[in-house]
Every structure is written in structure tokens, then in C-alpha cells.
């Protein structure tokens, strides 16, 4: 399982948060998720994503958001350095 770096703000309900996931173009994709869905590592917040593929040469990763962003995006390119791997049984290969 993988997580992508994100910024976190308030949601529409107490148990909800709005996250902004930056892509490689510097755009921020907003979506609302339950608070418990967001991970934290070393003071940084991460959103669980599906890892679709990687471009090793350019250090990029194509990820899928847990659901469609407010702007309509499902999949986006992020910097590989912005990904964090969660150790879990059966986790995927290194990107």
C-alpha cells in the first residue's frame, strides 16, 4: 500500500478533512476524506493511493486517488519522493 504527500484542512463535517494532493505540475487536487483515512509520518500527512505505475527515469509515479477529486481527477502523476510505503502483508513491489 502506498500513500501520497498531501496537505490537510477542515472538511464539511467534524470527522472529515479536505486534503490537497500536489501533482508534478504544481497543481493541487482537493478531495474530502474521513479523518482516519489520513496517515502521518514525521509531521507530514499522507493520503492512501493506488500505485498504478512508475517512470524510473523521471522519478515519477502514476497514482489513483481514493475517489474523484473536486476537480474531477482520478489519476495523477506525483514525484516518487512524495510517496510513502506502508508495510502490509502482500504489499506491492518497490516502484
Amino acid at each position, binding site marked *: *500500500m502506498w500513500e501520497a504527500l498531501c496537505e490537510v*484542512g*477542515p*472538511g*464539511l*463535517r467534524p470527522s472529515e478533512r*479536505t486534503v*490537497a494532493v500536489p501533482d*508534478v*505540475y504544481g*497543481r*493541487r*487536487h*482537493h478531495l*474530502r*476524506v*474521513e479523518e*482516519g*483515512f489520513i496517515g502521518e509520518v514525521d509531521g507530514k500527512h499522507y493520503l*492512501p493511493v*493506488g*500505485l*498504478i*505505475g*512508475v*517512470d*524510473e527515469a*523521471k*522519478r*515519477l509515479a*502514476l497514482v*489513483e486517488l*481514493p*475517489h474523484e*477529486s*473536486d*476537480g*474531477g*481527477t482520478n489519476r495523477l*502523476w506525483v*514525484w516518487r*519522493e512524495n510517496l510513502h510505503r*506502508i*508495510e*502490509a502483508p*502482500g*504489499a*506491492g*513491489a518497490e*516502484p
Partner: protein
Amino acid sequence: MILSDREIATALERGQVRITPSPGDLSAEAWSSTALDLRLDARLQVWRPPCPTAPRLVVDPCDVAFSATELASAHAAEEDCTNGFEVEPGMFLLGWTVEKLQLPHAARIAARVEGKSSLARIGLGVHVTAPTIHAGFGFRAEDPGFVGNPIQLEIWNAGPLTVRLVKGLRICQVIFEEVSGTPSRGYEGVFSIQGPDVEPPDAM
């Protein structure tokens, strides 16, 4: 292929679908032959039209940085329907289900949230053309304690009469469908593909 009530119950037993709190066994009121009713939670987010004297507001959905939360903070008000909330004709609001849903990718089950005919007959809709709940919804493989997410409903009153919503109302139904194959998001390998030409961060 749509799952029958017995197949949904089996999927719940096997953990292929998780609903919290549990809908109960097949004798519970929530069940029908091919769907399961879910209930409305108390919190509502009610969209209000802009003040007539305010500058004209145009929402740009093409803007990738568009944030519905920011828009709602300016144009929606929070309401609680524990003791009832009256939805006037033409009103639009967001609501959420009491039940939280989880669909692990590997289970290869997706779902759709749909309205109930009893409410549709009086003009009440529960989604605006976006009923799909994708495989993987509310799932965190590394967190077995995470029970999933509630389903957000886009509620609107297209009828001429005021409709009263109360927490616990069976407001929508979920239809489960089998996914043919495992989605790439849940695939345990990673595809090697070519990304866009962009300057790496340390070159910016």
C-alpha cells in the same frame, strides 16, 4: 452481474463487503432482493443561493484546483436533522449515510447508490448522476480497524412539496456488482510506464 441478497450476505460474511453498523440478517428491514437500504445521518450541508445583491458567481469545474470545501464554506450551511429538516422545493444539500462502507479491491465488488422509489415519487433525489462506488472504496489494507467511509448523498427536491428528512430515514439503496478482473489500483505489481516531461523538483 448484480448480487442477490443472499450473495450480498455471503460477501459480508467473507469480508468482501464491510458495512458498519451491520445491516443485520436477511430478515431485517434493510434488505430487498437485490439491494440494501442505508439510512440518513444527522448532519446535512445545505447549499444556499448567493445573495441577490452579491457579484455574480460562476463555478469553474475545469479548474483542477477547485475545492468544493472552500465553496461550501461560503455558500452552504450546516444543519442537523435529528429532529427533522424540511427540504423545500428546489433545495440542494449534501447528506451522508449512517452506515460506513468498505469494498476491498481484491474482492472485485463495486456498487451503486440509488434512490428509493418511494422518495423518488415525491420528487426527492439522492444523487446527481454520480452513483458509482468504485472497488477499493473506504479500504486501507494496512489498517484492519478502519471500517470504511459513509456514502455522501447529493439530495435535491425536484417536487412541488416540502419534504421532511429525519435522521435514520432509509434514504437510499446500494446495489452491488461483481467486477470482472482485479482493478490496477488493487493489483499487487506495478506497471512501468512513461510519465510526462516535467522538470524535477531539484531543477526548479
